[in-house]
C-alpha cells in the first residue's frame, strides 16, 4: 500500500487514502521510443501477473477530442493549451489512473506532467504557474526518463512521422526552415527535461543504445517497484545500472 501523495494541495474528493497499485511514468521527448518500450513493458508486467492500465496525453473522454481539434487551428496561446491539457490530465487521473490504483493495478503513463511542464517552460509560461496548476497531480512511484541527444532524434523522426508542427515548436519559433526550428526546439526541450530529471529524481535511462539494451535498463529500474507489490520474482536483467547523463 502506498499512501496517496500529491505534488501540491490535494484535490477535492480523493485525498487521504492508500492505494495498493503503482503509478509508473515513462517520459521523454518525441521520437525517443516511448511507445515501443511501453508496449514491451506492458507485456512484461502482464507476464509477471500484474494488471496494467495504460494511458497517455489527450486520451481522456472529456478533453481529448477538443485538444486535437484545437491544435489543428494553430492559434492557441500557451495558457489555454496548458489548461486544456490539464483538464485532459485530471480527467484521466480521476477516472482512469486512480481507479486502477485503487484496484491494485499498475498504471503505466506515456508522458506525465513533466512533458507538459517542459513544453510550457520553453514557451515562456512561468514555472511557478505550471507547478501550482499541477499541484493536484499524484506523485508517481517511478518516473523512467528516456534520454537522448537531438542528433539521435533526427533519424528516428525523419524515419517515422516527419517534422510535426508542434514537435518542431513552429507555433512560437521562427527559423529559416523546419529542420532548424526542430533542432532548436528539441534542444531547449531536452534542457528542461534534464533539469526536471534531477529535480524529481527520475530514473534516467540512456536511450541511445539499441532496444534490448534500453529495455533491460528499464526493467532494472522498475523491478523494485513491482517486487514491492508482491509480484512473481523474475531474474534481474544483467544490465548495469544506467548512468545519469550530463547535460550538454
Amino acid at each position, binding site marked *: 500500500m502506498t499512501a496517496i501523495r500529491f505534488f*501540491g*494541495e490535494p*484535490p*477535492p*474528493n480523493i485525498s487521504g487514502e492508500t492505494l495498493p497499485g503503482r503509478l509508473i511514468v515513462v517520459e521523454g521527448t518525441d521520437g525517443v521510443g516511448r511507445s515501443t518500450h511501453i508496449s514491451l513493458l506492458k507485456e512484461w508486467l502482464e507476464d509477471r501477473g500484474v494488471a496494467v492500465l495504460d494511458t497517455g496525453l489527450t486520451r481522456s*473522454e*472529456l*478533453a481529448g*477530442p*477538443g485538444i486535437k*481539434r*484545437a491544435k489543428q*487551428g494553430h*492559434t*492557441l*496561446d500557451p*495558457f*489555454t493549451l496548458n*489548461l*486544456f491539457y*490539464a*483538464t485532459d490530465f*485530471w*480527467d484521466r487521473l*480521476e477516472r482512469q489512473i486512480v481507479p486502477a490504483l485503487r484496484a491494485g493495478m499498475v498504471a503505466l503513463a506515456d508522458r506525465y506532467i513533466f512533458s507538459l511542464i517542459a513544453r510550457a517552460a520553453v514557451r515562456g509560461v512561468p514555472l*511557478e*504557474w505550471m507547478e*501550482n*496548476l499541477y*499541484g*493536484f497531480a499524484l506523485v508517481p512511484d517511478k518516473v523512467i526518463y528516456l534520454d537522448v541527444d537531438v542528433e539521435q532524434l533526427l533519424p528516428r523522426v525523419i524515419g517515422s512521422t516527419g517534422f510535426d508542427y508542434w514537435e518542431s515548436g513552429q507555433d512560437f519559433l521562427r527559423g529559416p526552415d523546419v529542420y532548424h526550428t526542430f533542432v532548436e526546439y528539441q534542444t531547449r526541450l531536452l534542457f528542461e527535461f534534464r533539469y526536471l530529471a534531477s529535480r524529481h529524481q527520475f530514473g534516467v535511462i540512456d536511450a541511445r543504445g539499441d532496444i534490448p539494451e534500453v529495455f533491460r535498463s528499464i526493467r532494472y529500474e522498475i523491478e523494485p517497484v513491482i517486487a514491492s507489490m508482491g509480484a512473481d520474482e523474475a531474474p534481474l536483467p544483467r544490465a548495469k545500472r544506467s548512468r545519469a547523463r550530463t547535460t550538454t
Partner: protein
Amino acid sequence: MTPFRSDELAGRLFIVEGIDGSGKSTQLDLLHKWLVSEGYLVVFSEWNSSPIVKGTTRRGKKRHLLSPMSFSLIHAADFANRIHAQILPALQAGAIVLADRYACTAFARDAVRGVSRPWLHRLYSFAVKPTVAFYFDVPLEEAINRITEGRPTFKYYEAGLDLHLSDEPEESFRLYQGLIQKEYEQMLDEFALVKMDATEPLVVQQRKMRDIVRPHLAGVKRADSGGVQEALHEAGLRGRYLEEAARRKDVQA
C-alpha cells in the same frame, strides 16, 4: 491586493458579477448600448464563449463528466482563451471591454465545490485586473423568484446538482446559489467589488453604474463609425443588407 496582472493598458475593463437573477446582464447590456452610442469602441465578452473551448465544456456538461476539478479547469481554459485572444488584445488596442462574469465567478463556483481558494487565485493570475468590477447584490429569495418564474426546468450543473445538496433541482439551485452568494460576500474587499443594490429600479441602477464608469473614460479612444450612417442617410437607404453581413461575420468568427 488582487492576484491579477495590472499592466498599463490603453483600454478599460468593466466587469459584472453576481448570482443568477441579480440582473447584472441587463445592466451590462444597458451600459454597452450607452457606450456605443457615445462612440466608444466596445468589445463584449461572455462567460463560456471561447470558440476553441466551449465545445468541450458542453460535452462535459451533457455527459455529466465534470467533477469539481475538471469543471474548474475547463472554465479556466475558456477564460484563458478569451483573455489572450479577445480581452487583452482589445485592451491593448485601447477599446472598452465589458465582461459578463469574470474570475470571481470561477472562484465562487469552484470554491463551493471544494477547490482550494489559494490554488484558484494563483491559477487565474493571468487575468487582467478590471478597471471597475461591479457586484450586483440581491436577496437570495428575490433572485430565485426572478429565475424560477416561467422556467420549468434547470440544467444539471446550473442547479448545482453535482454537489448533491438536494435531489430536487429547484431546492438544489436555491442552496447552490446561497453558497455562491456567501463566497461573493467574502470576496468583496479582496477584489474591490463595487456593490450595487440590485433591488433598486433598473433606471436608478443604470444611472449609478454610468456615474461610476464615466470618470474612467477620460482619454479612451472613440470608434470611427466609418461614415456608414452618413452614407445611408445621404442616399436615402435603410441598410438592410448590412445586418446580414454582420451576422455572417459573427458566424465566421
